[in-house]
């Protein structure tokens, strides 16, 4: 969903840049509460991983492809404010080094894939997590739904921006239908990748999933696993290669 330069007029582009700057400034403050010695390296890894998986475009219908945004996944793994920073770094590197997403459109892309995708994905995750039964399945379901919703919502926010300041004069309704439709499909891929990756991390190191910390607290009340104080998690280093499932063979 990387918006190139030129789609939106200067005023709208400047507006989204201001929104993105404000969001990143807030995130720089908020992330301090989320980050400690252990979560900081995890955040670096998550950002690098999202960059990698964003290269894996998967086919959706009619000669169109999509790729993971990763806002929901990152927020559940490392916390929402840190996720905004991770997404911003990914988008910055993509725009500056890889010419993926416009340079003047960077603020638009940070707004859509940083702020909106993280906000919607994490908001839905928290709302669902609070009503679903506590446990692995509850966390994965909440994350999957959050990931799914984040994609069409971000797409529709783009359509809103296009309505405000799209350079081309095309009927907004049909743009909304087309963008919404294809991004519903891409959202299914987003949910699948998010659930696969989170499932793999939860299987190996559930304590590294910030959005599943309540499970750790619940587990702490359960009978002790062994005298060495090891967590009850399996000791094998299971392959974290789940995302490979998603690639188009």
């Amino acid at each position, binding site marked *: *969903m*990387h*918006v*190139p*330069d*030129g789609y939106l007029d200067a005023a709208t582009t400047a507006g989204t840049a201001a929104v993105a700057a404000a969001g990143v400034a807030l995130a720089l403050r908020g992330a*301090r*509460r989320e*980050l*400690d*010695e*252990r*979560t*900081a*390296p995890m955040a*670096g*890894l998550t*950002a*690098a991983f999202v*960059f*990698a*998986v964003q*290269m*894996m*475009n*998967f*086919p*959706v219908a*009619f*000669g*169109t*492809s*999509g*790729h993971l945004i990763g806002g929901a996944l990152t927020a559940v793994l490392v916390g929402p404010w*840190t996720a905004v*920073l*991770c997404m911003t*770094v990914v988008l910055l*590197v993509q725009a*500056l*080094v*890889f*010419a*993926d997403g416009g*340079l003047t459109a960077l603020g638009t892309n940070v707004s859509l894939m940083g702020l909106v995708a993280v906000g919607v994905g994490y908001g839905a995750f928290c709302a669902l997590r609070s009503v679903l039964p506590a446990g692995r399945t509850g966390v994965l379901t909440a994350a999957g739904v959050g990931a799914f919703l984040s994609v069409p919502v971000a*797409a529709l926010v*783009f359509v809103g921006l296009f309505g405000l300041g799209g*350079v*081309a004069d*095309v009927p907004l309704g049909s*743009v909304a239908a087309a*963008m919404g439709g*294809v991004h519903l499909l*891409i959202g299914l891929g987003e949910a699948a990748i998010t659930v696969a990756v989170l499932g793999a991390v939860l299987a190996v*190191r559930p304590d*590294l999933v910030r959005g599943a910390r309540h499970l750790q607290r619940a587990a702490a009340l359960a009978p002790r696993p062994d005298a060495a104080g090891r967590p009850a998690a399996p000791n094998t*280093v299971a392959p*974290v290669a789940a995302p*490979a499932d998603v690639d*188009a063979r």
Partner: protein
Amino acid sequence: MTRTRTFLLVGVVVALLIAGVGSWYASSSPDGLEATAAEQGFGHTAEDSATADSPLADYSAEGVDDERLAGGLAGVTGVLLVLVLAGGLTLALRRRSASTTASTSAGQD
């Protein structure tokens, strides 16, 4: 502690493999936005990014003839770049543990 290190190391290797090797198999069809823009008649309003002649533009290393290698090199470079930048930023922002914090931590923020 070592297990966390192992986890992080495995994670980085997986990311490098996805970007360096797996990306070759990614779909090259236009993405949802690009396809919509073309179909709805505003694709032509896209402008080349100012970074369009970057040596790694479009995820392909300039001057490398083998396309597969060029893409792999670009992906690996990107993963390492994001890792260093995001990891550096989050390490700089993290709460220091008691041993590394000065006695002023009460006044944080």
